[in-house]
């Protein structure tokens, strides 16, 4: 199931919260966790029922490993700790390797002349990259003694399967929610703030990302030579906003729903497109993932406190892994290494240059990021080169295909609604709204003045209404025979 889906918003979510609060009233946090766990399983099974087995596997594996690692700590047995940590890592990475990377590995091997290993058709389980990372971080943190092992398997299951962040993050580390898993209290203020955040996230996803996606998807279907400069830039700009508002919208919804049930997840995005360097961008983009790689790979490898060649190697290892995490295809690896290279260049000299001009640094960073999305979206090196050529005029302003780029834009839903969504995307990529809210709050002695508060809530309800309309339109699919 996904969040931007009418049955989720109007059936699953209210039913969940009714059950959650009713059971919680009588059975406290443990009862709530049971409800959370069971509903999360239903949520997960909605997408692919059979893969619920993987969820159980991951839950049981890391629950047992966590307990055994802690036992090892209590017994002073480093060997025991290491054995169970290794089992956890192999178990999780093995799961990822089979379900996410096996196809890519075999395809790569098959490119060797004379090799033709049959590639099994494996559908990647939804959210596997997130929950395997979460459970691994748990085992590692228990090993490091940062957190206590969870004794209640239902509580642990609720953490692993927790539906708000199950399919698109953020990567919630166990230490973030450990205390709240055992004991949490929901407040009306938290619920209201969570609901507002959920609606804003839904708006980002439905009213901006989906509209950008329509255009980007439609344009990407054409060859770069047909898109020309105009089409290729519009497509990649639309994609740039699509990926941000999609991802951050999901994070907002996750954080909002978490808060509605008393969890406080960490922020995952902090206006990445205002970054003034690639280093800054990665401090603002998908923060939970970048910090995961920093804390669990980069620092254990020695970070920057090693020799220069080793430091460079560490950076490229981390960015190789980052790229691979984003998708089982070599273009993602290239994308990761591209950012690794940019970060090295920045650290060597570019950051110093950036200090001289904020505008220049911002524009150049944005260009690097946007070009990164070209690598991200093109599946082959040839595709990346072709697209780059189109962006820089090799196929003229309007392309060289049958249909000129202006008409392609029209056929790809570049229209007034798109332009409105684009304007909203530009505005909400910056902290303008946040700053206005902060200023008004300062004026109101820590609270929004009544008129502003009412206006804000009216706007939030308007977003909810528009999202409902947009989702209703999205589900509109009159019987196909009329089309023939």
């Amino acid at each position, binding site marked *: 199931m996904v969040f931007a889906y009418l049955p989720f918003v109007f059936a699953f979510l209210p039913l969940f919260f009714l059950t959650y609060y009713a059971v919680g009233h009588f059975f406290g946090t443990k009862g709530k966790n049971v409800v959370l766990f069971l509903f999360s399983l239903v949520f997960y099974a909605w997408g692919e029922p059979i893969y619920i087995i993987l969820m159980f596997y991951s839950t049981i594996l890391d629950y047992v490993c966590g307990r055994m690692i802690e036992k090892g700590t209590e017994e002073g047995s480093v060997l025991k700790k290491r054995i169970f940590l290794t089992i956890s890592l192999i178990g999780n990475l093995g799961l990822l390797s089979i379900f996410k990377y096996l196809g890519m590995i075999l395809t790569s091997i098959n490119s060797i002349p004379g090799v033709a290993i049959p590639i099994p058709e494996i559908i990647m389980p939804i959210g596997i990259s997130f929950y395997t990372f979460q459970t691994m971080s748990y085992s590692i943190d228990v090993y490091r003694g940062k957190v206590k092992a969870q004794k209640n398997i239902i509580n642990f299951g609720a953490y692993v399967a927790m539906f708000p962040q199950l399919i698109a993050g953020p990567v919630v580390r166990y230490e973030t929610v450990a205390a709240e898993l055992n004991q949490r209290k929901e407040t009306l203020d938290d619920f209201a703030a969570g609901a*507002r955040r959920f609606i804003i996230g839904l708006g980002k996803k439905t009213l901006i990302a989906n509209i950008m996606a329509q255009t980007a998807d439609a344009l990407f279907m054409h060859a770069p030579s047909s898109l020309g400069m105009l089409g290729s830039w519009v497509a990649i700009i639309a994609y740039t906003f699509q990926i941000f508002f999609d991802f951050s919208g999901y994070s907002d919804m996750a954080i909002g729903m978490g808060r509605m049930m008393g969890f406080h997840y960490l922020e995952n995005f902090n206006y990445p497109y205002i970054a003034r360097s690639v280093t800054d961008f990665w401090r603002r983009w998908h923060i939970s993932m970048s910090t995961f790689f920093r804390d669990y790979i980069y620092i254990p490898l020695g970070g920057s406190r090693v020799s220069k060649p080793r430091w460079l190697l560490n950076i490229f290892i981390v960015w190789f892994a980052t790229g691979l995490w984003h998708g089982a295809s070599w273009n993602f690896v290239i994308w990761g290494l591209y950012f690794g290279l940019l970060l090295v260049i920045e650290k060597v000299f570019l950051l110093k240059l950036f200090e001289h001009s904020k505008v220049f640094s911002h524009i150049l960073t944005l260009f690097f990021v946007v070009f990164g999305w070209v690598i991200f979206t093109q599946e082959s090196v040839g595709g990346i080169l072709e697209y780059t050529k189109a962006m820089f005029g090799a196929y003229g302003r309007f392309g060289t295909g049958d249909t000129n780029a202006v008409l392609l834009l029209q056929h790809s839903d570049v229209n007034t609604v798109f332009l409105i969504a684009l304007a909203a995307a530009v505005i909400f990529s910056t902290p303008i709204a946040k700053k206005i809210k902060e200023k008004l709050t300062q004026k109101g002695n820590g609270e929004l003045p009544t008129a502003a508060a009412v206006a804000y809530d009216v706007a939030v309800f308007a977003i909810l209404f528009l999202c409902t309309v947009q989702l209703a339109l999205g589900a509109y699919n009159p019987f196909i025979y009329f089309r023939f």
Partner: protein
Amino acid sequence: MRNKIFVGLFCAFILLVMVSAPLNAALTHAGIVKTANVGNIIEVEKVYEEGSFGAPLFNAIEEGKRDVADIYTNYIPFYVGITSVAKSTEFALNRPFAAYLLEKGNELAVIAPPVEPDKPQDSGTGDTTAEPVPEEPKFTPVAKAEYLDDDVFYRYYKVSVQLEENGENEEFYARVPGKSQSELYDKMEIQAAKINDFASRVPEVNWYVFPVTCFEDSEVFKNLIPSESKHNIFTSFLDRLDDGIQYDYVRIDSYEDKLNKYYRTDHHWNVNGYTEGYNRIATMFKENYPDLEIMEPEIHTFDNEVKMYGSIDLALSDYSLYDIFAAAKFPLASHTVTRDSAISYGGTNTIEKSFFLYNNKLQNTEKSYNHYMQFYRISKKVVYPENNTGRNLLIIGDSYSPPLLEALASHFDNTYIRYVDNNFEMPEYKYEDLISEYGITDVLLLQISSRVYCDYFDDSLLNLY
């Protein structure tokens, strides 16, 4: 206080929809309330193959999911109204920018690929030696097209025009195949060769090709939206048909023709269009069978009361335009019709029953009810037992054929109809076998033009030979 009000309103809204949708569905199914139906289909996301692990269970789960999604879509209060208003608003918002892009795009458009000179648009055979017809000065109507939307196969435009005939302003929708001109041109060349090849394999039968013209095939459309025109491809196709294959098509030489012969909100031909179609096809038959008498149908307008919201209304979820449905009644001798149970566009009545219902104002009045599709039934075989012509006809048709079938069949002893439409599971047969098995003397290809000239849906000549 602010948070209390917010949470109260938020929960009230969500819970209201949560409860009202299934309640509405239950009451609708019980016949207590009526929910507007626009034929919105929620399909199962996945089908597990029979025999695969847990298939019965997983398929049951998928159907349950589909039912939940159906309730929380089609039975949400005011669903049809919401989508309709939203779409109209969206079109209104998009209008200025869409007009700008269309104009700019057409200025830049190169009508590709280059095509051979148009042949004169007369009925005839594949003979290419006809003299060109000199162009007459034409009235230039004030017309503009507005791009609205697209789907997998088509792009939709709204056309506004001031008519030459009476100076009145009219609006209608145009639905245009979305594939590029060069792709369609390539497909057209293959398709023309296939038809010629098929005809040459069975030379003993008379071959008739009747692509039901669409607006984009006309020269009028070419002047309106050059970049979307299929005129050159259509005429090039006719050019390529071999001698011995007779062809004809309905003319759209003006906006008046378009409005007179086709629905403004549906992609099909209307009563005037298909009666002209009948006339032209029967005239082709008559060239081979001079004794054949062409019938004059009687046109029933049902007091102009049957509003039809056509397929394009439905596709766009915009009901601002509609058509008035009318039907033709041919003076037919007694005959028997065998229905095709495998294929149904929804029509279940006999034509006599349809006329009875409509004449007595008993027809379905749902907006989603497509009168064109429902009025006529799909037939598999039509027999005129009193005919003794020694002729048997095979019609390879689609949704454009039903209004004409029984009328066309009246000129033959037995008529066999095979529908080509990838909406339905296509039966396994070979046309060549049918021709020999049923003693076919005449074969008529009667389908939407794009299916005839370029196999637009990749189903046109399925199992043809």
